[in-house]
Structure formats: C-alpha cells, structure tokens
C-alpha cells in the first residue's frame, strides 16, 4: 500500500502546487495562527489521504460561507490521482465554476468500477479460503508446507496473493478504507504464513502493507489497531532498514507525522507516543528533519501534566519537561513558534510576562491546529499551573494582583490556581 504513498511522497507530482496553495494562506502576518501554520511543512510527510482531513479542517476554520478557492483547488490537486472520481469531479466542477461534473469523470468512474469488479473476482477465492475454518486448521507453522498445501488443494498461486495487495491498494485509493484494511490484513497474514522472510520483494510489499494498514486504521479512526500498526512499522524500520540510515530517517519522519493522528485523538496512545518521540532515535529525527514536531511534543508534554498528577509520576513528568526544555533550547535557532517560545520563556529565560504573552498566542494556535484543537483547554490549564508553579518556587512574597494577569485569569480563580500550583505551601500572599 505504501507503495502508493512512498513514491508520491518522494517525488510528489502535485506537491509543489499544494505547497504553493497552502503557503499562500500563510501570508497574513497579523494572524499568528496562520503565520505558524505547519500545513505546508507537514504535507510532504503525509499521505494524500491523510492530508485531506487537515485541509478540510482548514476549510472549516475559514470564516466565510464559501470555502476559499485556493483550498478547493488544493483539495482537487491533492485527490486528483485517487480513484474517488465522484468527489474529485465535484471538486473540479467547483474550481472551474461548473454546475455539474465534467463528463470525463463519469467515464473514469466506469473504469474504476470495472477494475473493482475484476479485482473482486480475482481475490474472492482467496478471501473465501481465509474465511474457511477447515483451511485455516490445516495451516501449520511450516511455511513451505503451507504453500504446497494451498497450491495443491486450492490452486493458490503467488500472483493471487499479490492480487490481494493490489486490490487493497485500489480500495484505499477509492476511499474504502475498511475493506482496504481488511484486504491488507489478509495479505499480510498470507505472506507471513506462506513465504519465508528472505524474499525481498515480499518484504517490501509487507512493509508497504503495514504502512497502508496504518493509514486505513487512522482514516477509519480505529485507534487501537492503529497503535498496533505504529508499533509494527517502528519495528520494521529498526530491523529492515538497518543498513540504510537515510531511508530509516525518512521512514521515521513519516511515522512521526502519521502517529500525530492517534497522538492527540486517542488518550492511551499519548503516553506511549511521547515515549516514542523522546527515544533517542526519534528525537534525533525530529531535530534533523522536522523540528516543527516540537510544537506537538511540547503540547503533549504540558498537557500530560494533568493526567499524571495523581499517579505519582511527577518525577517522570519533571524529566520530560527537562528534556523538552533542552531540546526546545537546542533547536531554537531552527524552529520556534508560540508554543515552544512559551517553554523557552518560562524555563530558559524565566521571563514570566513573556511567557504569559506567548501563552495567549499559543492558545490561538492550538485552537486552529487540526491535531491540537481538542487539547487546547487542557493545555492552557496546565500551562497556567506550570507558570504558577515555577513562580512560586522562585518568589517568597507575591502580589496576587500582579500575578493574576500573568495567568490570564480572574482573581478568585487565580488564587485557586496558585494554591494548586504551589508545591511548597506556606507562602504568604499579599493582597
């Protein structure tokens, strides 16, 4: 499946246009959210199907009734090469200002449907076989024996297995992620059952299938199995690409971007993914290829605070914050946005006013970021805690009226936050 993604990421035919279109929006310097939009940077690292929700979100954010033309154009360029003919046709019509889909799409649609039929026929037999409990019972751990068994009794050939893969890819391209996921799953099972891992072509396809399934699971918001796939992909990268550091780097960068989807949408995933991002190889990848991920990492670490509070994992939290500060500081010359600036202001410069300013900006950014929008409130809360925590650590006497604006809170709530935040209690508050 990722066969489909890999080449398009490596030399995206339309990526240039997409980038142009997207950066066109980032022009407005008044709006920090747009100024710091990561969309153009992220697109090269994502599959086109994965980019779509991002653009859709962008569209929803826009205030106007009509979606801006360049966004529609962007979507059109993005999906032009997929098999979702109806939708693409609509988009094309929209960009060209037509009321109906251009006729070519009907024809394309027919083609796609025909091919689908064909694929279905070819792969139905294998799928039936896999559904048949008798067959499954006869399969053993001996791969050669399995292959012989299926060959002799059911006429299964290598080509048939590959068809499964192609069909999965086709379905994915059509936007039918469920069935694509299933097809790829069966493909993977079969390959694992039948072939020894020495055959390199199957290896490539196998890892491509894993990538594909990850995309499917993300797009169907099936987070738990998506996390499984993330794990598998990670192992794949470590083992298979061992001898090719450049490809390893590239794949890791992809994995980091892809896993942003479960990262902020699936609570249990956050911890594992934070750990993943902080592991040496991945943090290096972030630092070398995609420093903008620091925004997400920073947001994740800061929001993690609430969850960890009761679980006595404060030590770990402190360590994460420490790591984060170190990296944000190191990368300061290459990447900065209000979120990382907030971290820097608070922990490097100890400039609380600056931190407060950045917090406001960061809040805005979070609210206009596809991944972070859900975590915006939690982030703001945790950030306030952090400010008051370190403020109280440093100060012995505090003028509450002066602190309040720092936290962007009304007086009463400010007090409360301060009390929660101060870990060493007997500070005197001067009113």
């Amino acid at each position, binding site marked *: 499946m990722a066969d489909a993604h890999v080449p398009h990421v490596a030399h995206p035919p339309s990526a240039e246009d997409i980038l142009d279109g997207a950066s066109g929006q980032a022009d407005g310097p008044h709006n920090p959210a747009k100024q710091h939009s990561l969309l153009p940077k992220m697109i090269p690292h994502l599959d086109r199907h994965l980019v779509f929700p991002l653009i859709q979100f962008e569209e929803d954010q826009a205030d106007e009734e009509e979606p801006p033309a360049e966004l529609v154009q962007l979507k059109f360029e993005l999906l032009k090469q997929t098999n979702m003919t109806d939708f693409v046709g609509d988009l094309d019509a929209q960009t060209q200002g037509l009321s109906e889909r251009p006729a070519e799409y009907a024809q394309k649609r027919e083609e796609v449907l025909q091919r689908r039929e064909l694929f279905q026929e070819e792969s139905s037999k294998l799928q039936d076989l896999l559904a048949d409990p008798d067959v499954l019972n006869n399969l053993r751990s001996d791969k050669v024996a399995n292959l012989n068994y299926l060959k002799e009794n059911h006429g299964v050939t290598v080509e048939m297995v590959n068809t499964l893969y192609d069909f999965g890819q086709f379905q994915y391209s059509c936007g039918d992620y469920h069935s694509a996921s299933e097809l790829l799953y069966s493909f993977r099972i079969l390959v694992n059952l039948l072939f020894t891992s020495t055959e390199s072509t199957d290896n490539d396809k196998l890892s491509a299938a894993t990538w594909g399934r990850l995309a499917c699971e993300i797009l169907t918001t099936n987070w738990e199995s998506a996390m499984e796939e993330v794990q598998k992909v990670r192992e794949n990268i470590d083992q298979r690409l061992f001898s090719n550091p450049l490809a390893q780097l590239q794949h890791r960068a992809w994995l980091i971007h892809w896993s942003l989807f479960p990262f902020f949408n699936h609570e249990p995933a956050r911890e594992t993914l934070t750990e993943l991002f902080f592991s040496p190889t991945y943090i290096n990848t972030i630092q*070398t290829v995609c420093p903008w991920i620091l925004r997400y990492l920073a947001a994740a670490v800061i929001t993690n605070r609430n969850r960890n509070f009761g679980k006595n994992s404060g030590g770990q939290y402190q360590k994460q914050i420490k790591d984060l500060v170190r990296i944000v500081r190191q990368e300061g*010359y*290459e990447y900065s946005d209000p979120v990382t600036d907030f971290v820097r202001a608070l922990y490097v*410069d*100890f*400039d609380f006013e600056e931190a407060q300013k950045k917090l406001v900006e960061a809040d805005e950014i979070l609210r206009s970021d596809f991944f972070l929008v859900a975590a915006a409130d939690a982030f703001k809360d945790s950030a306030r805690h952090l400010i008051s925590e*370190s403020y109280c*650590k*440093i*100060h*012995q*006497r*505090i*003028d509450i009226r*002066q*602190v309040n604006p720092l936290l962007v809170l009304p007086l009463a709530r400010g007090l409360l936050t301060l009390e929660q935040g101060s870990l060493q209690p007997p500070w005197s508050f*001067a009113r």
Partner: protein
Amino acid sequence: MSRFFHGDSSSDSSSDEEELYSGDEATKAAEAESSEEDSSENEGDDSDSSSDDEGGKTGASRFLREASDDSDEEDEDKVTVVKSAKDKRFDELEGTIRLLENAQKISDWNALNENYDRMNRQLPTLQRDLDGKAPKMYIKSIAQLETQVMEAFEKQKVTPKKMNPIAQKSMNALRQKIRKNNKEYMTDLEAYRKDPEEFMKEDVVEETAPAPKKPKKKLLDNDTTLDANDEGFTMVGAGGKAMIYTPESILKHLRTILEARGRKNTDRLEQIKIMERLLDVAVTDYQRIRVLLMLIATRFDLTSGTGSQMSQEQWKLAQQGIAQLLDILEEHEEIVVVDSGAENPEDDEKAPEPSIKGVLEIPGSVPSFVERLDDELTRVLQSIDPHTAEYVERLQDEPSLYSNLVRAMLYTERLKANDKLTVPQPQESINRVIMRRLEHLYFKPASVVTVLEEGTWKSVPETLDSKITPRSEGTDINNLVQTLAVYLFKNAEGIIRARAMLCQIYFLALHDQYYKSRDMMLMSHLQDTIASFDVNTQILFNRTLTQVGLCAFRQGLVYECQTALQDICGSQRQKELLAQGLQIQRYSQITPEQERLERQRQLPFHMHINLELLECVYLTCSMLLEIPTLAQAGSSPELRKRVISKSYRRMLEYHERQIFTGPPENTRDHVMQASKALAAGEWKKASDFILSIKIWELLPDSEGIKAMLGQQIQEEGLRTYLFTYAPFYDTLQVTKLAEMFELGQQKVTALVSKMIHHEELAAALDQVNGAIIFRKGVELSRLQSLALTLSDKASGLIESNERVLEQRTQGTANAFERQGGRGGRGGRGGRGGGRGRGGSGFASRGGGGQGGGQQFTGGALGSAIRAQ
C-alpha cells in the same frame, strides 16, 4: 640506449657538481652529504654498487674517453675548475684511505666501517674521471681491508667474547659490504694481489695522462658548436656528433631522455634545454604534447630531493607549460591525454594513429601535474619566511595555479564525459582535482574567492564551461563551495569525502553560519573515526573544529565556543595540532625523521589561524565560565573539583601565586587580571581589561563582539557577585543590583530567578518589595565548610594510610603464611613471628583478605599479649 649519450650526460653532471664543490655553496654539498648519511647504510651501499655498474660498462670502452671529454668543453671556464677539483677529490680519497689505515691499525671497527662508506661514496665521481676505472689506491686499500677483515673474523671465531657488541656489529656489516663490493673489482683485485708494486706503478701513468690532453681540444670544439648553433638546430651531442633537432627526430630524442630519467647522473637542466628546443621545432600537436608532458615532468624532477624547493622561475615555467598543454588540449578535442588505457607507440618513426573512434590517446596525467604544481608551491611557501616580500611574491602565483586547477578540472570533466575513449576514465581523477580546488577555497573569505573566481574564468576560453560548477553561477561563492563539496560527497569516498566535508564545514564556520556548520560537524560523525585517518586530515579536522569554535564565539555563544576549543587549546599543543609551527618540546625526543615529516606537514602561513587570537578567545571564554563556577564552589572541595578548563585554572593559580603583578603586557595577562577583578565582583575593571586587548580588532565586527563581551561580563559578574557575597546579605534590593551592574531590572530578575530555580542560590524573591531574600542556614559557613574540608582530608589520610598498610602487610601476610605453613606443623612455631607483627596482621585482614585462619590467630594472640 646509446653510450654516447650516457657519457655525455655523466660528464656534464660531474662538471655541474664541480661547481658546487668549488663555489661558495660548499655548505649545500655538506648538507646533501649529511642527508645521504642519514639514509640507511644499505641504501648507500646499493646506490654505490649500481653506480659501479655503470662505471663498469663505460670502463670497458676506453676509446670513448675522447668523446666524453669533448662534451665537457662546451663551457670553457668549467674545465679549469675540473682539474683542481679532480685533484682535490683524489686528495680526499687519499685522506680517507689514510684514515682507514689508521683505523685498521687500532682495529677500530666502527671508524673503519664509516670510512669505508665514505670512500665508496667518493668513488663514483673519481671513477668517472678515470673512465670508469677505479683508482688504484682504492683497489689497494680494499684489498688490504678484505684480508684484515677476514683475519679478524677468523680470529674472532676462536675467541668469541673479546669484542664489544658495537664493534662486532660494525665488523659484520663491513664484512658483508666488502664481500659484495669486492666482487665487482675482482680482476683489479687479482691483479693487485699478484703483484702489488707493478699494479700501483701503472696507476701513476694513467692518472696524469688525461689532464694535459684536455685544453688542446677545447678551442676546436668550441668553434664547431658555435657554428652549429648559427646554422639552426645543430648541436653537439655526445661523442662530438652533431645533434640535429628535426621534427622527425623529436620522439627519438624524447625516448633517450626518458631512458635517462631517474638515473643518478643525468643532467636535468640540460635535458630541459634540449626539450625546450624540441618544443620550438615540433610541428604537430601530438609532438608538442609529447614534449610538453616530458618537459613538465622533468621540471618537477629538478627538485625531487627533500629540503629543496623549486625556484620561482622553474615553477612559473612549469605552470606555463601546463597552461600550454591545456591550451592545446582545449583546442583539439581529438587529442586527449589520459591516465589509463593508452600507451606510447613502440615505433618512433611512424606518426601515431588515432583509435577507432577518432581519438588520439596519449598517456599522461593532467591531474597529477596540477597536483604536483600545487604541492611544489606549498613547499616553497613553507620554507619562506612569511614576513618577507618574497613570500608575497610567491603567493601571487596562486591565482595562476588556481586557474590551472580549474582548467584541469574542466579537462577531466570533459574526459569523463567523453565516450570515445577506449577505457573510460576513472572518477577518481576528477575527484582529486576538485578536492584540490576546494582546498584552495575553503579557508578564504568569500570576497577573496570572488576575485579569484572572476580572474580564473577570464583566463578560461569562452567556449568552455563546467557542468559541475557552471560559469554562470561563479559569483555565488557559498554555492560554489557547496556544489564542489556535494559533488565529492556523492562521487568520492573515504578520505576525500571526509576532507570535502571538513572543508565545507570550515567554510561555513568562517562565514558565521554556526548552526549549520555545527550540525554538519555532528552529523558527519567524524569525531568517532578521525583517529583512523591520515595526519593531514586530522589536522584539517582540528582546524575545522577550531574554526567552528571561533564562529561560536563571534555569535556570542560562550559555552559552545569553550567546549569546541577545549580539545585544541587545552592541550598546550595548538601549534602541533594545527600544523602551524613546530612545538619546541623540551623533554620529548623526536627523531630527525619525525621532525622532517612534521616540517612537511606545516601549513603555509597564509592559511594559518591566528594562534594568539585563538588563545585569547579560549581564555576569555574559560574565564566567563570558570569564574562563576569557582565562586559558586566557594571553599567546598567537592565542587571545586569540577574543572572546566584545566589549563585556564593552572594559569590562574600561577597568576595568583605571584607576589607583585605589574600592568598586563600580553593577552594572557589581560585575561588573568580581568579574571581576578571579576572574581572580586569588579566587573567594570574586568571589562576594561578584556576590552583593552588589541587583538579583538582582528575580528570582523569587533565593536559588536566587544559589546557582547561587555554584556557577558556584566551578567557573569552579577552571578559571581551573588555567589560570593550571598552569605553576607539578608536581603538585597533588585534595583540596587541592577544599578550596580548596569543591567535592566528585568534582566536581573530573570538572572536571579534562573539561579533560584536551578537551586544554585538559596534565596527567594520578594515581589512586593522588589528584593531578594536570602535563606540562612542553607549555605555553609566558612567554619563549617572548613570543618568539612578537614574531615575530608582526614578521611583521605586514613585511606592512604590504610593503603600503605595494605601494601606492607601484604608482604608480611605472605611471610606469615610461609611461616605459618611451616610452623603449623611444628605446633606454635609461628607464634614468635605473629607476636611481632600482631597489629599489622589485623590490618591485613581488611586488606589482604586471603590470609587464612592461622594469620588471625597470630594477630589475636599478638594483641592479647600486648594487652597483658
């Protein structure tokens, strides 16, 4: 090969050498001799015998004497010198032989061995004078020697222990040499042995014979040569034959020159003259190229020895030769000079045929020529005092060299793309040339490179362009370096790749792109593998690291700068590590060989990194980091052990020990006094000291750097002040601090906050009153910390005491064991011993641990007895 030719060249070179000996350049000769002596004995022996070979050949043809004499006559003056020099040499030989005899008498084998070698060295020239015959007295002496050595050897066999090892060694060596050497004079030796007197007589006649003959011939010959020269291309070659240079005979001449190449007695200057004439005569491009290839190579051969450099004139001629060669090659695409795949035709008569694909291939290597040219210039620059006009003058040759490099690169590039060649050209030659080009660029500021590039492209014909570095992009220098380096990353491997990487990093660092250069440095992972590279690459690595450090300093990144420079500057071996001068090491013993190698590695002065500036930057950075750390450590010994820069601390300690300190004289003094002031909290004074260092002016944007330094000193001063004087304050107004250090209140608060947050300072801020409240009882008082130090020291003492005990008792424990082992059977025999060392027996329980039960009883008994 022609004997005539050989005779000619040999006598010529002899006359050349004569000049050396007679003239005031005697020192040079001595040098040459001494260097020869350095080379191993074997070598000397080999070359002797080989030259003897030649002597043997010519010696047979006595009738050739006239011919060889004639050729001498080209220069009238020289001949008069010949006589005296020849006599002198005979005298020398006699002297040596006398020494030999003396040594023989006292059986000083060492001296014998040495003198024998010397005699053999003197021999070849004399032999030439005698037409290849060895002088009689030589024969006599070697005959005597042989007998003596044989006798001694026999004697030695009988009484083996008589001789000391050095003499023994010398004698053996001598015996070997004599055995080898004497074989060649077998006939002469036999003649001598038969009748020594007769043999020696003959000699007298021979010796005098050639001398008077010479002047007669001279006049005659001189006329003929003159005539010949007037006519055109006639010249007198060996044997009085007229050498006529015609286009047809060019290749033949080249062949003879080629055959003479590398021989000991060839006169290269003469060959060069001949070839220059040949070049004038040559009509076809093929001939011209062939002559040029040979000519350039011979010019380089002129200075093949170590320690000698090419003269400017010769270098320029070589450079022009290469340019001319490239001119021809650029004009005629159908002729190529290739490294591999071509051979010179065997037959000189026929004109060579182009290959099937219409390309005429000539063996040779343009990259090697330009590389050699580059090396020669570097060698010249190494040897010249950089503060003279001469250095500048020679340095002005660099642009022409660079343009040669670029043209050679274009040429190799074309060759690589040329698919008509029989053998595809290796990638390596392009890489080599590009590497050279990059090495001429990386250490220069962009503006200089721009001028260089523009000049170069002007000298390159309009029609030519490079695919790798197109002419149109010549103006963007950053891009140029990047392209060259990237090309090498892709196409080269191993050392060249690493070097390309380092060059690019250096260039980036030089142009203030700190982060980029640092990231590349880290990503290259060279620091792990650099130890396995050759020394020159290691030097480049050191240079790059230094440059990155300096770049960090210019950006105001003190910590990064200090860590980058630590390895180079902390070692006190900057000069050696950067190859910018020999370190005078008092206690180390470097062999002359090592020293010579080191001299060869030195970088020419214009590539140097200013060492004084480097030291200044390093010390200043160390100061900014160390002084607050020292203040923080206070008197606590634990923290004091955390040393950032050892060499800085050493200097500081040395400075503090001084009883009187005068006003600072050099950079180091400045920094040290500034450190003292800073430690005392007087940041203004420190800042004055630092900013009055003149060397900052060398940095670009020195004002900005001074401002940065001023601010750093303020901040670090504040930190130092707080660390040092915190115990004396209860509270401290932030505004007061801000005033004191002329910093903004915000900045002070931020600094203090940071210190509190990192738990460096036991204090808290009082926001209401704008004050710092110091917490008491957290900091140790002086008494307490001293007490701690004392207890530390005491425990150290105990430890070392125990260690000493352990050592001692391990000895006694063994003694116990032995005693016990013996005494165990004999009842309480061991007790006496146990009593004496009772106390130590105990201690050894902790230390030795393997003493065993018996020992304990001994100890216990001992103490029990003592208690009574």
